[in-house]
């Protein structure tokens, strides 16, 4: 059996694309990187096998819950929201600055990823970051948008947070 890292569906051996959600297995099939996830992450991932909605309507806002940080970040996303860490030597400021939470040590790039707001949906895009962006444990291909759902786990480098719609 081969468990889909994206949706948890148990696929038969030899399957190349998850028969449930269509995610490709190639590149990961023979080198499962599950060991890198810490147990806690795995638990939160398993708790909700059913998915939150992908609908993100008008007037909705985003709540970001960073692990070990009590107070969530709340913001209303514009057309494009850059997530990264502020580097005093750089001129640019990301819309969401993760530097106060130890982002530099955990491998977050200055311009790491972006949340793009579409008509009733949010998509997550990796901006060719050094350590990559992971959505629910699966690595994003740079510059290819992926639809976000309420409750998704996002990992940037080794920086983990969950995203909620409200």
């Amino acid at each position, binding site marked *: *059996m081969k468990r889909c890292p994206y*949706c948890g569906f148990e696929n*038969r*051996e*030899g*399957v*190349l*694309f998850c028969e*449930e*959600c*269509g*995610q*490709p297995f*190639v590149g990961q099939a*023979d080198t499962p990187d599950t060991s890198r996830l810490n147990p806690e992450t795995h638990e939160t991932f398993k708790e909700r096998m059913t*998915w939150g*909605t*992908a*609908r993100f309507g008008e007037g909705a806002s985003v709540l970001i819950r960073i692990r070990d940080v009590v107070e969530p970040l709340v913001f209303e996303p514009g057309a494009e929201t850059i997530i990264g860490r502020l580097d005093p030597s750089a001129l640019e400021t990301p819309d969401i600055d993760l530097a106060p939470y130890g982002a530099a040590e955990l491998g977050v790039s200055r311009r790491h990823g972006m949340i793009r707001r*579409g*008509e*009733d*949906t949010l*998509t997550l895009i990796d901006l060719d970051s050094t350590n990559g962006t992971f959505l629910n444990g699966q690595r994003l*291909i740079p510059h*290819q*948008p*992926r*639809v976000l*759902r309420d409750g998704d786990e996002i990992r940037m480098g080794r920086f983990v947070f969950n995203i909620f719609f409200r």
Partner: protein
Amino acid sequence: MIDASRNLYAILGIPPEATAEDIREAYRVMARRFHPDANHNQGADVQFRDIAVSYSVLSNPGDRLRYDDAHRHFRDEPAYFSLRAIPSKRVLSTLIEPQVLYLLLDIVPAQRVISARRANVPMNLTLVLDRSTSMRGARLDKVKIAAHHIIDQLSPQDVLAVVSFSDRADVLIPATSVTDKTSLRSTVSIMRADGGTEIYHGLVAGVAECRKYLAPRMVNHVILLTDGRTFGDEQRCLALARQAAEDGIGISAMGMGEEWNDEFLDALAAATGGSSAYINTPRAVLQFLDERVRSLGDAFAERLQLTIAPDADVLLESAFRLNPHPQPLEVERQPIPLGTLEKNRSIRALVQLQMPPSSKTGFRSVVRLDVTGDVLIADRHQYKVISDIAIEIAHEPSPEPPPPAVLDALGKLTLYRMQQKAERALTQGLALEAARQLENLATRLFAAGQDELAHKAIHEARRVSRTQAFSQEGRKSLKFHTRQLLALPAPGNDVP
């Protein structure tokens, strides 16, 4: 009397100089694989019939001698087309659970045979045109223009018939050689929109016209064009299509607008190896008909049929024709019609098999593939190619990436299947599940760079969760456009 053109030795998998003992042994092996008592797969009994006939001839010394003599001048005939199969894995691992194996099949016309003969194959074409009330206006006008265009393209060696139908059928142009183009065109022009849609009437009249000039050396094809849903006569239409396929007539269907029944048109086309398409603007009619007729005119071989006979412990799960004209194939009925093999395009199909758990290492047979077709440009009928696929099983084989061609095809097919899954979920009343599948599809479409389709999928997902229903336009558009993605040739995988 046995058809001397068939290669009985190939059917038993032995060389022509095989001894009587070899023949007996080969038959024993084949019977173990394909005898209906041991193997319940659909294609197996088709194969076993051939095997039994071959054995009965070759095991009788007198019959064998007569057959060898009659078959002699077929021995040196060229390979008219070939069959290639690429498995998703070359070596399977021993496993205590079943595993999936994909085969990418290519049926390739032999270029040598093509360049030796240039002439085009004559066509026996029947157009069956919907003229129900809903066609009034731009739709019917475009259909007429498209029909005119086709008349202009045909040559005097071709045969054309035109049938129009609503709740009854009229033969506008009885099957005739295309000589007086002016009068043919003006006959099409007088068509008027009026009445309901009953496809069966039109199809019966169309197939009857096509049958008048039915000839094995021609491409015999009926093209149905409708914008409506037919009520209650689907089964009769399908039975008619199967009969037509047996007689060597292919049917292609195209639906315009939003009302027509896509599953029905799919089944109709699949029954004969034809194709079906969705046309969302009247303008696209011309493009589709043009492409279809060009493709038929480019025929190298017609009435291709594929038999997929897995070994007794292997399961055939599905098959899909990717190219040309992507179309799901009905594996429950074998042989499977594949339609026309064009001169410059191979037929490509993806087959999904399930292998049983296995602990034994070494090579094992998996499936026998058998393709038969009438090679029109060489006047060779029922030309057959057989390919026995074997695969190695080993303990912990070194990992290998799947072949890019398989990956590419399967990736696109997965998109189409996700859309189908969403539809199925909704038919079962699972709106949330359907919406979730559509969101998954949107994610994959974004990843594939198909932003426009992805947005359509998101739109439908929202609609489904709100209203528990697809929009007709959105559903058909997603289905046929994800399917159409399959038709794009993978870079570097074109037929040489």
